[in-house]
């Protein structure tokens, strides 16, 4: 039994390839940028909530709304939250942690395992706007990479961080993390941590496209591993796809859009997908969409009967 549709790389789709064009109207543009706008809003809101609790005493039921920062926090003095990677590092230093922070890390871990590990990266992390700006600017300037790094390097950095935590007795990444520095200093007072962020910006702009988030960041690597079991994923409808490649052009982790593999599984499986939603609006055939993993199979089968084609 041979099914050409299951070998999408072999030949182009049956329909002519249409390229994506940004709509002229403002409304159309805003609709295309909807996930981008939502992501920026979420990123801003996260910082605002922490900042306002620390400085303007925002509270609920007389308790601080969300006190702390992304490393660990407490929501209305009741629900603990904690960065599971930071907690893992501290556990590797062989110190006994209080139960509160362990519960907090469990909650956060469960949350990201559900909605996609690297949702943290593209929707919450304060470094994301910085590296996105660098990426946008480098596209405008037409800069090429000055360095090649393997995208798996981040997993080695992750392992190294844990080994060093074991050896030095310090949560190795937390002590040098530009993410933590930036976020902490935005909330608790600006200092030289911005230098580290400037370093990332320059590295991403001048040296390597998506250099930090896509190659080095061990926190992203950690959440990539968490994301393997994510339930919110990008559904890929192979039948409507014309292999135009627009999605791969905008994707910050283009290796996750392995369309052959995505065609077999009906979704983007890699944990390295950040669920940023860049690819969804630019697909001229609406072949990509956010969906829940258990529903993806059924939705892809339903679309066998009709092929929605957007006319732009």
């Amino acid at each position, binding site marked *: 039994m041979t099914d050409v549709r299951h070998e999408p790389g072999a030949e182009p789709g049956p329909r002519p390839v249409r390229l994506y064009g940004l709509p002229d109207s403002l409304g159309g543009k805003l609709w295309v940028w909807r996930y981008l706008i939502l992501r920026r809003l979420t990123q801003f809101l996260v910082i605002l909530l922490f900042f306002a*609790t*620390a400085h303007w005493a925002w509270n609920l039921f007389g308790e*601080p709304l969300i*006190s*702390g*920062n992304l*490393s*660990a*926090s*407490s929501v209305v003095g009741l629900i*603990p939250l*904690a*960065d599971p990677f*930071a*907690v893992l590092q*501290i556990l590797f*230093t062989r*110190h*006994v*942690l*209080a139960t*509160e*922070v362990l519960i*907090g890390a469990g909650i956060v871990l469960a949350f990201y395992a559900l909605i996609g590990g690297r949702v943290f990266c593209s929707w919450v992390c304060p470094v994301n706007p910085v590296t996105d700006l660098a990426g946008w600017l480098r596209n405008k300037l037409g800069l090429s990479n000055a360095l090649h790094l393997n995208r798996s390097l981040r997993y*080695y950095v992750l392992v*190294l961080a844990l*080994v*060093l935590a074991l*050896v*030095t*007795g*310090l*949560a*190795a990444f*937390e*002590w*040098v993390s530009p993410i*933590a*520095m930036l976020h*902490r*200093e935005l*909330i*608790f*007072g*600006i*200092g*030289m*941590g911005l*230098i*580290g962020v400037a370093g990332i910006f320059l590295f991403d702009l001048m040296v390597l496209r998506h250099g930090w988030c896509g190659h080095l960041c061990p926190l992203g690597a950690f959440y990539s591993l968490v994301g393997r079991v994510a339930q919110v994923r990008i559904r890929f409808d192979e039948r409507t796809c014309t292999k135009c490649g627009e999605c791969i052009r905008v994707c910050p982790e283009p290796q996750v859009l392995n369309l052959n593999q995505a065609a077999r599984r009906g979704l983007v499986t890699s944990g390295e997908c950040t669920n940023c939603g860049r690819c969804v609006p630019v697909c001229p055939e609406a072949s990509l969409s956010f969906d829940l993993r258990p529903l993806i199979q059924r939705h892809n089968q339903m679309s066998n009967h009709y092929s929605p084609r957007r006319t732009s």
Partner: protein
Amino acid sequence: MAQAAGGSRRAFLIRLVQGASLAASAGLVWTYVLRNQARATPFALRPPGAVPEAEFHALCIKCGQCVNACPYDTLRLATAWESMPIGSPYFRPREYPCLMCPDIPCKEACPTGALSADLEDIEDARMGLAVIDTENCLSWQGLRCEVCYLSCPVRGKAISLERRPGVDGGLARIVPWVHSAHCTGCGICENRCPTDEATIRVVDGSLVQGRMGAHYRLRAHDPAGLMVFDPPPEPPAVDRGVEGRVPGLDALNLGDWP
């Protein structure tokens, strides 16, 4: 065929060694940075209940919940490249001392146990130890001051006033004396000290405290250490009543020598 396999094995081994070397060198640089950070200062004053410094470095997740919980402007999180270990909470008493809230909200807020839950009474906190620069202390130089004694929240216990012989045979001096058994290291004395640079300062106790050794036999228990110098004259027999000593300058009027 065998040669090809051997070649690939050799290539694999070389790759392995190269990778290990890269990891080792990156790890060394990383460790160097960490060690530098962690010993950035020998006397960061931590919030009450902080576990010993090495353990504190490991446990503190740098979330700043203690800073938010502090009702005053005492606690700060160190920013990058400050002289304090990055992201950790500390206070500088000369700028804002710890006001020793009885409910210890900073400790309550700590999610990791870096501020130990075992601390129940704020007077049991040991954030540091006040030490006096007797060469510049107004009282020790024969002037009347007593500000540290009067401002000390562990009144009369952490800092006492002691009578010392006068300078050059002049009037007797009333000098402040710190007792490590009661000093919490809150730093209010350092904050209030009227000299240009504080002459009473809170430092990490381990920087200034020695240990005698259990095998020495002392002739008399002498917590204030007064026998090191000339013993003070017998205090006049005054009935101090239930209240104990009278603070400050009033002591002079009442003849109530400490």
